[in-house]
């Protein structure tokens, strides 16, 4: 019996070790950034990304690609998120797989935060240089102070080559060209190693002598004065004075070596250039909107009035970066990510051209698995259950105009 017990115990121990090792060694690549778990109302009612373009789907290490497009800062910004008065154009990627060589809003470089206005559209571009090989999901992203990151659409991009070949040359204002990937590394290791060695030396001085039991006994028996010797004090003096001297000398020699240094730079850019979208001639009133939970479809009753001089048709409903298209009006040719594109996801009860001066009430249905996959249906559980999005109308000449919608959403469970 004992033999059996020992065997079971031994095997259990081996199994535990194997399981622990396996769980430690298995580290799969993080593929996405939790974009689906971001509250639906935040994606629907804050930043609307559109006209996005990833210039390449495959890039070699050291080559560049651009992520460009436009974003509309929603006028019906929710109260639960701070307004984007201080915002930072970012990129969602799993670690520094691309480095950001440049980012622009309205043509202005934005390495710093920018102040954005509600109800305005901005054009943006991010220049990315490939660094780490692999398949990576690259998102547009905006960080908003007091709100957090607001993630835009992402697309799979492949980087080929070897990270060992990656270089990041920079020329400083003192005329030195360095590789920022490895710059200052030896200096960092040197100083940390030196100070760690000095710390170990201090520790070694004390641990070479008996420590806990004899010293505790001495203190208990009132002989604590005998525990610190004159030599100990001399060594302590040497270490203390030596440390201060090394710090002072190292600081002086560093200042001599780097006479020109500047403080870290940070700031806020205001008056960003906006992108002037054509003024819409179509007005839309949302009569009602429901989300049918079993059918994964949102239905809106829209009263559309065409005040322009050309007939228009509804081609796209864009919300939370998911694009619902009526393929009879609009087909995507930009290579937009498949999972965010419902090519026939938009149904309009009457989508015949709406003549100038005419008003029509239509039922618009946006249906696709994306409602569930991207957890937009969770909107009905949000604290402010409203939906919002962009409607794109097209006239006979193919000209596009953008109209925003923002209305309460009623869930239908049966």
């Amino acid at each position: 019996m004992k033999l059996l017990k020992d065997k079971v115990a031994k095997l259990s121990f081996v199994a535990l070790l194997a399981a622990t090792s396996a769980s430690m060694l298995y580290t799969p690549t993080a593929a996405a950034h939790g974009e689906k778990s971001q509250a639906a109302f935040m994606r629907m009612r804050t930043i609307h990304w559109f006209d996005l373009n990833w210039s390449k789907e495959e890039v070699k290490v050291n080559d560049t690609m651009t992520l460009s497009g436009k974003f509309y800062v929603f006028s019906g910004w929710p109260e639960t998120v701070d307004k984007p008065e201080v915002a930072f154009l970012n990129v969602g990627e799993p670690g520094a797989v691309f480095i950001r060589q440049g980012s622009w809003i309205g043509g202005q470089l934005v390495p710093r935060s920018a102040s954005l206005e509600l109800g305005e559209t901005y054009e943006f571009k991010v220049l990315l240089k490939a660094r780490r090989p692999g398949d990576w999901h690259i998102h547009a992203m905006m960080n908003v102070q007091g709100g957090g990151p607001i993630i835009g659409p992402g697309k799979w991009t492949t980087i080929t080559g070897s990270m060992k070949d990656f270089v990041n040359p920079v020329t400083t204002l003192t005329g030195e060209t360095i590789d920022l990937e490895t710059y200052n590394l030896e200096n960092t290791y040197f100083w940390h190693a030196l100070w760690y060695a000095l710390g170990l030396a201090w520790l070694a001085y004390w641990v070479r002598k008996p420590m806990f039991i004899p010293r505790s006994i001495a203190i208990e028996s009132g002989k604590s004065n005998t525990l610190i010797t004159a030599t100990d004090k001399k060594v302590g003096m040497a270490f203390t004075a030596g440390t201060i001297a090394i710090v002072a000398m190292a600081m002086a020699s560093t200042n001599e070596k780097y006479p020109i240094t500047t403080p870290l730079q940070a700031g806020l850019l205001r008056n960003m250039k906006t992108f002037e979208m054509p003024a819409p001639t179509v007005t839309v009133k949302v009569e009602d909107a429901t989300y049918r939970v079993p059918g994964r479809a949102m239905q809106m009753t829209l009263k559309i009035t065409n005040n322009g001089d050309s007939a228009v048709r509804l081609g796209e409903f864009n919300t939370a970066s998911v694009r619902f298209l009526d393929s009879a009006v609009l087909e995507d040719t930009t290579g937009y990510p498949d999972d965010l594109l419902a090519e026939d996801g938009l149904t309009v009860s009457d989508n015949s051209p709406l003549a100038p001066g005419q008003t029509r009430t239509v039922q618009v249905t946006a249906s696709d698995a994306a409602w569930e996959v991207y957890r937009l249906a969770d909107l009905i559980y949000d604290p402010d259950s409203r939906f919002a999005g962009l409607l794109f109308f097209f006239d006979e000449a193919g000209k596009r105009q953008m109209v925003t919608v923002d209305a309460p959403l009623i869930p239908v469970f049966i």
Partner: protein
Amino acid sequence: MSASQSAVRSRAEAVKVSRTFDWMILFTLFFVVLGGYHIHYMLTGGDWDFWTDWKDRRLWVTVAPIVSITFPAAVQACLWYRYRLPFGAVVCVLGLLLGEWVNRYLNFWGWTYFPVNFCFPSNLIPGAIVLDGILLLSGSMTLTAVLGGLAWGLLFYPGNWPIIAPLHVPVEYNGMMMTLADLQGYNYVRTGTPEYIRMVEKGTLRTFGKDVAPVSAFFSGFVSIIIYFLWHFFGRWFASTAFVSSENI
């Protein structure tokens, strides 16, 4: 052998057991402190210590020493009161830095590919040696708190300057001036660390002009004194032994 008999039979054996016990305690202390201090520092210092573009002359200089003097104060109190051993601060910082380096190398570089020259930890060892030295020389926790706490705050920035100064060399980038550290932060994308969090130099009162770091260091030193007092009480409490009367059991 009965319970009243000694476990050792000679002085040599007693010395051997005592030394074995020393190493066991030191080993355990080192790794327990490493874990606890590391978590504490990550939670309270956090990003101010993670990135070169956060190692600024105002808030980093202020925050890092204040939140890092905690464990050294407590462990110093424990080791000094119970054993008259003046290496509490150094053993803490050695543990913290070992943990930090393992973390930065395996996690920051190994998992998320941030270059080590962008995410190395701050150097706390000069302050720790001086803190232990003052305790040894003075034998007083009060003097250690006042002089050592102040020195801890004052030595932090100059102790790190030789490491970070090369990253404060300016560069012109697409028509804007940045430091190399700023450029690292801009190049090596972090999704959850936006630029606006680094805007710390606010306010118009600039009595000392551009010399912000010494003022911050003095302030940090003063607050470190208070934090030292507070945490050394934790150490004393932790090192106390309470006996319960058998009559009360």
